């Protein structure tokens, strides 16, 4: 079994004793095939049980272990130690307040997620005995990619617009709203437009594209946001140039 000596530089913050965060260095022997999350677990088990961070599934499904690894938003469970040379710097996700160590305050994202109504709003109420909703493979494919979001918030940490303008609804929430807007079973687009077509919605985005580059599930939120912009623009023209046309 091959081992490697790993130097981790972890941002620590204890709200009860610290005025501001500071870096702490840990030197541990790790197995060659480990990921950064394994190294953190190893530190917690053998060196420093006070180190705090979120994690759950260890298989890039739960979206809990997002953190900045050498300045880039990553899932710690998907970041292999062998891909890093030298000291590995681990920080909490950028643009979120730090609760403690690598744990961030995610209340803002949770509230925004709820605001975009990320659930099916049927066009008309269907009776319980009305049978299943039918969908063709093409109709499914139209939105499938956007269902893959695991709410890991790496896109928010990558987005400078969100860092500068915290009111911005942000990539994942807009992508999820778009996912339901694209669903043939859904009729809730108008209700979502209030949030995602607003200034603090899609129009805050200047298409940096970083959200899509860091997304571990290849959801492409940047694409979703541009598509929302185009549809909202078409809405605007229809409303102003064709006022007689009411949908």
């Amino acid at each position, binding site marked *: 079994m091959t081992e490697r000596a790993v130097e981790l530089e972890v941002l620590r913050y204890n709200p009860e004793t610290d005025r501001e965060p500071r870096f702490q260095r840990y030197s541990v022997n790790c197995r060659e095939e480990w990921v950064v999350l394994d190294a953190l677990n190893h530190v917690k088990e053998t060196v420093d049980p006070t180190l705090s961070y979120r994690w759950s599934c260890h298989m890039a499904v739960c979206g809990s272990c997002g953190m900045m690894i050498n300045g880039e938003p990553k899932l710690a469970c998907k970041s292999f130690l062998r891909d890093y040379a030298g000291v590995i710097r681990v920080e909490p996700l950028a643009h979120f307040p730090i609760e403690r160590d690598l744990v961030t305050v995610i209340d803002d994202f949770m509230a925004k997620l709820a605001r975009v109504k990320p659930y099916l709003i049927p066009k008309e109420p269907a009776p319980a005995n009305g049978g299943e909703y039918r969908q063709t493979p093409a109709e499914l494919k139209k939105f499938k990619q956007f269902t893959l979001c695991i709410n890991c918030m790496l896109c928010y940490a990558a987005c400078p617009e969100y860092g500068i303008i915290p009111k911005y609804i942000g990539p994942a929430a807009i992508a999820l709203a778009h996912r339901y807007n694209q669903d043939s079973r859904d009729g809730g687009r108008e209700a979502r437009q209030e949030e995602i077509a607003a200034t603090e919605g899609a129009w805050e985005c200047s298409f940096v594209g*970083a959200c899509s580059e860091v997304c571990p599930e290849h959801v492409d939120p940047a694409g979703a946001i541009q598509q929302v912009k185009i549809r909202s623009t078409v809405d605007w023209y229809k409303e102003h140039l064709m006022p007689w046309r009411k949908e």
Partner: protein
Amino acid sequence: MAQGMSRKPYVRPMTSEWIFRHPRYVRYMVREFSCLFIGGWTLLLVWGLKQLAEGPAAWAAFLQWLTSPASIVFHVAALGFASYHSITWFNLTPKALPVQRGEEFLPDRAISGAHFVAWALVSVAILFLAGAF
């Protein structure tokens, strides 16, 4: 949350360092920065129109200025930035304009390629109107 546990979230300040955190942010800022040159060239065009309206002497002086080294340097830079902006922008079009045919989406190259072809055709048409051929 456990009773008595105090919360004191720490908010890290957002500094301009983000631009240098990853090359993608530098590329983005260059794309944004290109607007200064494109805006500058537009102002130059307005100035040229004004000179044209003021008579043959003013127009000739304007044409003379266009051949100066400063003007040539500016035009080369503006062309470079405008091309960079257009190329990076057209490469992003498949994200904004996905086209689904049946079950499958058209490949990205088809969407961005159509934009490049349209760009080339419009450029040729403008050069034709300008009497370049």
